């Protein structure tokens, strides 16, 4: 059986103490399998972003355990955590966060080079990653020469470059119009169908619906999980 690429076991996060104590997350159990797109929804303050930060080793849980690519994050040193962030998980935010003075390809290859990879190898990986998001012809453009949708494609390419296989996306369509948002969701879906895994935080039901599973948070707890029907509907079901 395939192992989850990311697991959360009884994960909890508490801010403050005593009367000021806030349970941001309570007993979250969640597995992300390779090839899976999982959406996390819920109102503002329900714990969506906190959950994503735990998954990406950007924040430590108060209780429970997060396992990424077979490694329990709590057992890792700061240096090892930084390595996990570089080689296993990528982030995509609402703001695309591309460096304006670097081309699309350089935005992707620079972190790889800083990580010790030779420039030629890093460039090759960046180009391949750009092709996978249908941006092969735009490798040498600067962010201000790209539309919002194209910049987000570059950010996704950066998030999933080389060995990285888990994408954590926090409202990645927030700054985009509806048609462009849909193309970004389609892209996430196809990258997952090709074997990547993604956790997508969104408050839009129509965007969450692209996921295999939709996890709904309420007050830091999982209120419910909706799964796509395994045998899809046919036209006959709709008539």
């Amino acid at each position, binding site marked *: 059986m395939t192992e989850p690429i990311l697991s959360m076991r009884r994960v909890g996060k508490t801010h403050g103490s005593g009367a000021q104590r806030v349970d941001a997350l309570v007993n979250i159990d969640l597995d992300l399998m390779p090839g899976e797109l999982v959406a996390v929804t819920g109102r503002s303050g329900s714990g969506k972003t906190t959950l994503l930060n735990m998954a990406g080793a950007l924040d430590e849980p108060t209780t429970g355990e997060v396992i990424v690519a077979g490694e329990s994050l709590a057992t890792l040193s700061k240096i090892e955590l930084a390595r996990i962030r570089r080689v296993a998980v990528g982030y995509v935010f609402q703001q695309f966060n591309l460096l304006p003075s670097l081309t699309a390809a350089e935005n992707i290859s620079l972190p790889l080079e800083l990580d010790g990879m030779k420039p030629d190898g890093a460039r090759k990986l960046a180009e391949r990653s750009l092709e996978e998001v249908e941006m092969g012809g735009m490798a040498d453009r600067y962010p201000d020469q790209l539309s919002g949708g194209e910049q987000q494609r570059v950010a996704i390419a950066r998030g999933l470059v080389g060995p990285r296989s888990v994408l954590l996306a926090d409202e990645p369509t927030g700054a985009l119009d509806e048609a462009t948002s849909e193309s970004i969701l389609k892209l996430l879906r196809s990258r997952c169908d090709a074997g990547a895994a993604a956790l997508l935080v969104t408050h839009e039901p129509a965007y969450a619906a692209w*996921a295999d599973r939709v996890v*709904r948070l309420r007050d830091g707890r999982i209120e419910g999980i909706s799964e796509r029907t395994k045998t899809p*509907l046919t036209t006959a079901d*709709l*008539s």
Partner: protein
Amino acid sequence: MGLREGLLCILVRGDAHGYRLKSELESATGDTWQVNIGQVYTTLQRLERDGFVESAESNTDGRIVYTVTDLGREEVRQWLVTPVDLAASGRDEISLKVLMAMVSGVSDPRRVVEKQRGSTMTLLQDYTTLKADASDEDFAWQLYLDRLIFSAEAELRWLERVEARLDAKPHSEATESSESEATEPVEVNR
């Protein structure tokens, strides 16, 4: 829309025999409407009786071929420009269930909202999968899926609103019945 209007719309494009009308109507509606061939023929007879179509035996294969009349053409035009009266389309099962939960006090309306939301979200996921797989050429099917997606989305937004408003109310007010009234629960499930 009834079969009557559907057949007239197809006939306006050109003369056809019954079986072809059936298949063209199905394909024009993105195959979301499976039409019974027996019903097609009885409907065509009624349309002929009312003067909306005329029929003649085809000289090539002996099948009955139907032609729309001017009256039929006008009927289609009138039907298309008459807006659908949404107010007359009847009760909405989901809103009734939520309202009945508040009235009966048997089940927390939040629980009803949560259950419905899970089910509608699954449906929205399935529609979205169908849309992702839909062929670019199948325009009618894509438009129909968009319609289903927008409806499911609207329902989820409404449920979200209901939940937010229930949360904003003091708990005792979330259900409108008092303890004593709740002893004889209203049957909500069908």
